[in-house]
């Protein structure tokens, strides 16, 4: 699989899916008009990754958002549900949800998105 990288824009986060080092990073803003369209290739890559050797080592997922709109929230739910299913199937996946110290909105969103993902190892880190 080729490394998936997308530069951050005003509406969308930086994306870096480095298969070799088993690391997925999303960082920045997420409020595109069509979030499903933006997240589609990321979800496709994750599906391929999950069916193609995700079990052979620990995968680290780092999510750090300044702002997420409601349609992006839905896409992130899909992404984390997919990761949770892979973890249930035996993959070792660690999710880090990073928020600014005083950002209660993003902290709450992290709780909403992650608290029902029973197979994932995750932490919500304020810094």
């Amino acid at each position, binding site marked *: 699989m080729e490394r998936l990288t997308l530069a951050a824009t005003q*509406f969308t986060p930086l994306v870096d899916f480095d298969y070799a080092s088993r690391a997925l990073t999303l960082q920045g803003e997420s409020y*595109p*008009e069509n979030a499903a369209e933006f997240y589609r290739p990321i979800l496709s890559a994750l599906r391929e990754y999950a069916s193609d050797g995700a079990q052979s080592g620990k995968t680290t997922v780092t999510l750090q958002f300044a*702002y997420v709109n*409601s349609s992006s929230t839905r896409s992130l739910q899909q992404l984390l549900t997919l990761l949770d299913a892979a973890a249930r199937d035996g993959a070792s996946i660690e999710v880090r949800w990073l928020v600014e110290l005083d950002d209660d909105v993003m902290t709450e969103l992290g709780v909403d998105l992650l608290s*029902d993902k029973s197979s994932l190892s995750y932490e919500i880190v304020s810094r």
Partner: protein
Amino acid sequence: MSWNVAHRMTPESSEREIFSYSGAVSAGIVGATGESLRARLAMLNVESQRARKVFSSFVELAYNIIHHGEPEGARDVKIVRCGSIAVWEAGQRYHLRSQSLISAVNAPPIRQRLQALRDLTPEQIRFEFRLRLTNLQYAADDSPNGGAGLGLLTIARNAAEPIDFELSPVPSHDGRLQLIIHTVIQ
């Protein structure tokens, strides 16, 4: 809500206007106006938690105009939808008010969603938000049961009091209705 939102066109003298926009609403406009609003909130030293909620509700209201609004005037594909959003401060509370046209067909479900939302407690809003989030089979932001979608629920979560709204006929617009949504952030 203590007043009729439809009759509030501009902030009163005791209020501070923060930002207003009226015109075509596209994703590019959401980005440009959103950044202007952020800069204005920073310039006014609005506490970061409040500023984030104001920005979040602003973006959801603007996308609501794009997704549910009816074209106004010439149906140019470039000018997707028209509407207005005003943001002002009164007594350390931040008010946002959006105005747009919606079709007569869209009006009943939108009224139903907004009415359902107005009756929910903050705890029920959070519960509904999580419920909607986990119901991924609903691809669009339309509710299967008359409840609000994630966008409206996000606005409600940010709000200090129930969302107020008004739907009124606009005689000169072919049966289309004017939708006003008013939300307050503390």
